[in-house]
């Protein structure tokens, strides 16, 4: 199943795919940020009707001081996209409910200016999830109808899940 989906994406958007990996049986496709919405529309047409999860991982550069008591990560998290200031990786977990096929889309964003188009027009369930990623990780979802903080107060400073976030006393 996942071979067909990979072929579908590669055939329709030959320049969009950066790499594919297998994560415990789930096809993970890293794509260019600009191709996210067209690929999501394509996948939605081909049965991926369920957006299970949106999240983001902060791959801070080594210059960012580690958390108190933590050790600096040596993990690269896949192929680098040439973002020297570090990157924020947004991960979308999709499911095609009819055939129970799973797929994850991944995009690398510039850590200093993370921006990506919203997918709320395709899956309404993305509304709260994108707000959460914005709130905690600082990713701006361009075109989101109501991009406000959701879990922290509106006047909160900083993005708590960033690796260089300083925890207030």
């Amino acid at each position, binding site marked *: 199943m996942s071979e067909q989906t990979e072929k579908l994406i590669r055939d329709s958007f030959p320049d969009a795919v950066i790499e594919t990996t297998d994560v415990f049986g789930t096809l993970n496709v890293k794509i260019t940020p600009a191709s996210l919405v067209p690929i999501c529309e394509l996948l939605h047409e081909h049965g991926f009707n369920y957006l299970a999860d949106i999240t983001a991982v902060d791959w801070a550069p080594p210059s960012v001081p580690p958390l108190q008591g*933590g050790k600096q990560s040596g993990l690269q998290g896949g192929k680098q996209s040439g973002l020297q200031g570090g990157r924020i990786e947004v991960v979308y977990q999709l499911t095609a409910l009819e055939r129970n096929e799973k797929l994850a889309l991944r995009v690398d964003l510039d850590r200093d200016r993370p921006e990506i188009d919203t997918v709320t027009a395709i899956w309404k369930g993305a509304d709260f999830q994108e707000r959460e990623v914005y709130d905690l990780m600082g990713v701006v979802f361009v075109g989101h109808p109501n991009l406000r903080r*959701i879990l922290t107060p509106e006047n909160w400073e900083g993005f*708590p899940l960033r690796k260089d976030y300083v925890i207030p006393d």
Partner: protein
Amino acid sequence: MSSRIRTELVEINMGPQHPSTHGVLRLAVTLDGEVVVECHPDVGYLHRGIEKLAEMRTWVQFIPITDRLDYLASMLGNAGYIYAVEKLGAIEVPERAEYIRVIMMELQRIASHLVFFGTMALDLGATTPFLYAFREREDILDLFEMVCGARLTYNYFRPGGVSRDLPAGFAEKAKAYIKKQRERLPEYDDLFTNNQIFIARTRNVGVISAEDAINYSLSGPSLRGSGVAYDVRRADPYSVYDKLDWQVVTYPDGDALSRFMVRVMEIRQSLSIVEQALDALPEGELKCKTPQRLKLPAGEIYHHIESARGDLGVYLVSDGGEKPYRLKWRAPSFINLGALNSMVKGWKIADVVAILGSLDIVLGEVDR
């Protein structure tokens, strides 16, 4: 002279201190007379930053925090996290432990659905069913107390198994409970489920179609109440669910009554699962050996289970160390709440309570 009476929109707050919001949830509701025009949930009052806390704790130290998210179904919080850890770490689990886990997870699902049954009744003005439901839930909490000493925050699951064995007399007590619960479920129906007032307040109220429910990423009983037979226990079987005989419960109408009925019928399914697991419980080890200081290999995993509220996903990234590099908790209550606005639009303010109740959210999990 115009026959139309001029009306003005009014904005009101429901909550954060309001009994029918099930915790600290504020709904900013815009009303045209009694009719809801907009309803925006304001969440975060219980936000504790558990995803950040996870990055400062070892893999095992995080288990007690999973008790405190969906605090009406702590065993399932334990389970969601532990299955992700075990899969990432390729940790084997003895079969006896898996059967004990299924017993705990399904008893927990019943306990959670009982709270739902009671609070839904309470929201709609019937106080007695709440007492019935809590009376039976007490028996489940007694069983949990026998097993792990705690009544609400169990900290019972461990990577590779469970923390301790079932004590002597557990199976007998559990079977006595199942018998009693089965006898009392018809009483619930007589008292509340078949009550005309209850049915009038929930049938065809807050309808969401299957297509919309999927588009809003609803999950659990709230999705199955729209006729979508998606249950993670069946779609991506974990533990020993594929060895047991049970049905995925769905109701087709997508209204508050359907969502209610899914949970009421799931109690019966879960009773059957617990009974089968008790009968099939094999002898053997409780926990496989794991290192004192557990390290998981570098990599990542997204794993999900069916909690009492829906599709509970846990995304873990490990850098090979003793602590998570990143942990994300896909809380079904949070995502289900995202559909509330579309479900209550056009309904009366009193229906907001019925529709919110039918989603069965827990704010500990919404806010994390």
